[in-house]
């Protein structure tokens, strides 16, 4: 996993702020039974908790995928929070599928980076809480 440098106190506070209005971002869940369901995500913390893609479960038709387009996530983190380092780290992960021509292969590779991206978010959240002295809940 990409090492993230310690964020400033100002950035940490911003990342733990609850959002409203245009800053709220849409993620979604899906499973073979229920279809796709949208969720509005109101905070960085919620996003870190929400995301989860078990690649085995996709082929097994078991469990639920919690997903966001990584490029949407990258822009959200860059533009809403101004966390350039984290956004760059996510962007780096997207390199694995950017040149895929086959739409299914593209999608599967997109799914495959969600959990590594989640780890980045969780790590960032822990850093923020360490700085601000709050206990990690994720």
């Amino acid at each position: 996993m990409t090492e993230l440098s310690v964020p400033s106190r100002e950035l940490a506070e911003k990342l733990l702020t609850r959002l409203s209005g245009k800053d709220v971002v849409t993620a979604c869940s899906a499973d073979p039974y229920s279809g796709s369901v949208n969720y509005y995500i109101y905070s960085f913390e919620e996003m870190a908790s929400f995301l989860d893609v078990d690649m085995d479960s996709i082929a097994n038709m078991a469990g639920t995928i919690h997903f966001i387009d990584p490029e949407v996530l990258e822009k959200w983190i860059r533009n809403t929070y101004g966390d350039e380092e984290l956004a760059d780290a996510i962007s780096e992960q997207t390199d694995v599928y950017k040149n895929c021509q086959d739409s299914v292969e593209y999608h599967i590779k997109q799914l495959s980076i969600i959990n590594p991206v989640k780890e980045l978010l969780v790590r960032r959240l822990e850093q923020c809480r360490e700085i601000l002295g709050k206990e990690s809940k994720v």
Partner: protein
Amino acid sequence: MYGHTGKIARINLTTRSIGTIDTGDYESWGGGHGIGSAIFFDLCKDKTIDGFDPANVVTIMSSPLAGTLAPTVSRTEVQGIGVQAYPIAWYTRSNFGGRFSAMLKAAGWDGIVIEGAASSPVWINIVNDKVSIEDATGLWGMDTWATQQEIWRRVGGGSVNFDDWWDVAGSRDAGRTTQRPAVLANGPAGDNLARNGCLVHDAGAGAGQGGFGGVWGSKKLKAVSVIGTGHVKVADPKTLMDVRLWLARNHYLNVDDPVRQPSTGGVGMGGLAAGRSTPSVDNEPNRVTGCSSCGFPCKRRSESGTFNDSQCVDQNYWSGAGLSVRDMRKATDMLQKAGVNVYDVSGFRGWMNVLYQRGELGIGKAIDSTPLDFSQYQTLSFAEKWLDVLCRREGIGNDMAEGVIRAAKKWGKLEEALETRDLNYPQWGYSAHWSLPQVEWCYGSLMGDRDINEHCFSFPHWTAAYTVGLQKEGLTAEKFVKQLTGKMVPYEDDMFMLDYSWRNGREEITGIYSEHRAKMIAWHRHHTRFWKQSMQFCDWAFPNFINAQNKDMEGWTPYCEENTYKAIMGKEMSYEEGVEIGRKIWNLDRSIWVMQGRHRDIEKFAPFFHNQFFQPFGAVTVYQDDKWQYSMEPFMHIDAAKFENWKTKFYNLEGWNPDSGWPTRSTLEDLGLKKVADELQSAGKLG
């Protein structure tokens, strides 16, 4: 008579009279939904009444194949005028699994017909041939689990140990069993006429869609209990066993020696490793369970007893809202006990939270949420409180019990929410499902009465596209399409039925607005009306077009369906003949909707469905650049004008007047439905 028991209980709650209907009078309809619709048509004289009207007729139908070793058919079809759909609460259906259907047959009944409304709460007690209407005063308002437990106690006379043999009617000669009564119970939501009230059997088998909980509430009907010690006559038991063994040997997942690793095929491809779709929590021990006679049990029971039998969307009641998986499961149990339809409320509570976040809903806000404090939204106690106020219609709960669409209308938010997709409910007030890109799902729902909830095509598409291993073994998109359409009689030569192209010029030639798609939708509607809702082969296993545990990837459809039917019923029924009976049933249902107010002009999707939105999941097959390929289509949406043209193609194919969408006399008479044509004509609604 094989398969059928020969009689259907006819119970009038107003007059408290109990009679029988001869199943033979309706045998041409197959069973299940077909017979249910035919009886409804005959007994419900005014089809335009409200679902809460005492004159509404509710049928609860088994399958002629249930109560035998036929795989997956222990399902029960509930029909009648619903209270959920919007703007017109259509005549509708819901279906649940478990052991109710098999038990009904063991008691000697093919179904139950409920007419009228009681003046005080009642429950129906069926013990073999004996049917009685019992006082439910003490049960009213009780949750669905407690109701079932209390009825078990009452049927057993308070002294029966259900872990051992017991005499069901007080004497050994009257029949003995080791089984508990199978009870279909209404919850406190339905008792209070909630439009999202549902009926629950055992821990988590539920008839959710349609609002039948509310309908039962209006009839003061709390539960139906059945215990039987008889059996179903099977014409050729050996052949039935042979079919079952053929399935097991050639298509089931053998965990010790799988043809392919389980990761190369889920339930839609056959060979489900049972109980897999609900992840275990903290490695909690659990065991697999399923409906009576199922060959692919999909449920589980846990050591802690939480989340038992809840297998499908019910787990989404409070998902994505910050609860731990363990608490989500507890919330789901609360939902089952309240008897509330998850499909109406999971989107509802999420949308209410959106309104709260925007400052439009909350205690003292424009939409006053009293007594619900949405600052507690991410807690289990709030999920419980949310259900409680709905069930009791307390404060904002009075709006919530009207269902999400009617609440949105009352709050002045409906038009906006269906424009922005804040409410992802594309047709008739029913939530989206696999509506896109699996267009057969949204088209079928709009041409029908509800979210169709039929995974016939979405399961195989999901697995084939996501399972690279199968593709490497030769399951190309072309082979996939050929194999599926090859079984879609009588249209089996038309591969373009599965071309999901929606732009780039092919959409009206071979894609989703073409005549090929009209054939596909027609096949799907007809097929499921018979094989899935009348014979009641489970949606999660049938049809089996492709099977990963078969060496050649050949699915068991139609061999299994045809030979199971023949073995039990003692007569031939080809797959195509079943589809044709399904067409008759579909046209009867369509005629009832027409009487209720259906017209081409109102068969329109919610506005958001015509805007581009991002829906990343669901691979489909498309024909592009002169070849078939699997494709993700995350931006697929419906072009309103092209869809209108498609409707004309579909109506013409079905033999309906393209100006109105109403069946014509010649179509109905060709199907043997002259009396239906006559009734439509009397109503001035013949196409």
